[in-house]
């Protein structure tokens, strides 16, 4: 199996690479690239994302043909894709970090700043928080409800269709922290930094 971590020159993806390598060990052929040909021939794609929504979208768009290739992979061919953090957020139609920015539009919804309730909640939301599983998701196999995951973000994805939500976490409100829509998977938290439970989620994705 060929799995590609999309390296589109946005943010620090070393930890994503390290964790996938750890889990994949020999079982999976892992590529880290933005090469369109390699992405096309992949079985699965991981779309990481760090920094702002706008900077990530801009970086994706700056690589010729990348967005179309990803769309064909995920939407037309319905092959498994996992978005992490801003990688998930970009599934939305629009994001409001820095400036109003058009997202990939794969799952209808928007990405807005977490309501800090008049400074009651510190932002970024940094640290370990419990996830509340809302529906069965293939990447949650053997993951217990209320497992701890590592978060670091100030913006949240608000999908229009609530049935895509597979887990939420409690911070100011019930924040969407995982989605599953057919072949599309996304986590707001960082499985690559969430110790053994996080690695299990990566393993589940690789075993799909």
């Amino acid at each position: 199996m060929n799995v590609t971590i999309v390296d589109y020159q946005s943010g620090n993806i070393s930890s994503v690479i390290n964790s996938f390598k750890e889990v994949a060990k020999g079982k999976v052929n892992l590529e880290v690239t933005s090469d369109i040909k390699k992405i096309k021939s992949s079985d699965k794609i991981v779309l990481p994302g760090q920094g702002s929504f706008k900077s990530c979208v801009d970086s994706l768009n700056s690589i010729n043909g990348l967005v179309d290739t990803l769309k064909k992979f995920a939407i037309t061919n319905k092959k498994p894709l996992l978005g992490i953090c801003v990688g998930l957020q970009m599934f939305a139609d629009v994001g409001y970090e820095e400036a109003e920015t058009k997202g990939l539009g794969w799952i209808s919804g928007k990405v807005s700043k977490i309501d800090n309730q008049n400074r009651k909640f510190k932002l970024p939301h940094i640290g370990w928080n419990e996830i509340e599983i809302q529906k069965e998701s293939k990447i949650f196999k053997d993951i217990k409800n209320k497992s701890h995951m590592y978060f670091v973000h100030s913006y949240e994805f608000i999908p229009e269709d609530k049935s895509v939500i597979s887990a939420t976490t409690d911070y100011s409100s019930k924040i969407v922290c995982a989605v599953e829509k057919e072949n599309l998977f996304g986590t707001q938290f960082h499985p690559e930094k969430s110790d053994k439970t996080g690695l299990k989620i990566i393993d589940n994705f690789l075993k799909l």
Partner: protein
Amino acid sequence: MLKNRIIPCLDVKNGRVVKGINFVELKDAGDPVEQAKVYSDGGADEICFLDITASNENRDTIIDIVRKTAKKCFVPLTVGGGVRTIQNITDLLLAGADKVSINTAAVKNVDFVKEASKKFGSQCIVVAIDAKKVSENKWEVFTHGGRNKTGIDAVEFAKQVEANGAGEILLTSMDKDGTKSGYDVDLLKTITKNTNIPVIASGGVGTLDHLYDGIVKGGASAVLAASIFHYGEFKIKDAKEYLKSKNVSVRL
């Protein structure tokens, strides 16, 4: 609910842990990679390396240590000490650090924080503030391990780094550091009230009760400690169980 974090910090000099302890499970107590692994297996919420290497020639050793640690520890890794340029940050992040902690470079030029957070994102920029009490309810920023006075008010500086995009503040009381008499709770309280980003308490931990004070009385989102864990007095799990018994939420 978001959990309060416990962060063991390892001081690293020329590639070796300073004041490391002989954990029974360690083959080499001076090896930062092995120590970090013990901490992460023991439930540390994050790991922090502070590079106190004096000479520039040996600076590459920390990069090598980060690279090795990042392949074994799957919790967030913060690296501080000598982070002065965008290139320093790039090198550490590429090696596998998740966050860098900036101290002197931020004091010298607060715009460096802006530049760094714009380039890498706030999530990986921690500003380390070393503060010393100068009068009642007044603290000043110091550099070089508390030797150099800057004349900068710690509260004003904390607000400034927040405005410039720092994701977290690592706040060390230079009065308390190394004393084992507890955090400077007033300092913590003042900074946590005046900012809206997470503050990591540092400097002075001698007992588990001090960790409680940092979180509950000081309002810190995370507590950092070195010696109480290094010398094997307490394991990370002891600290978490103690805090839990006092109704402080932690990841267990």
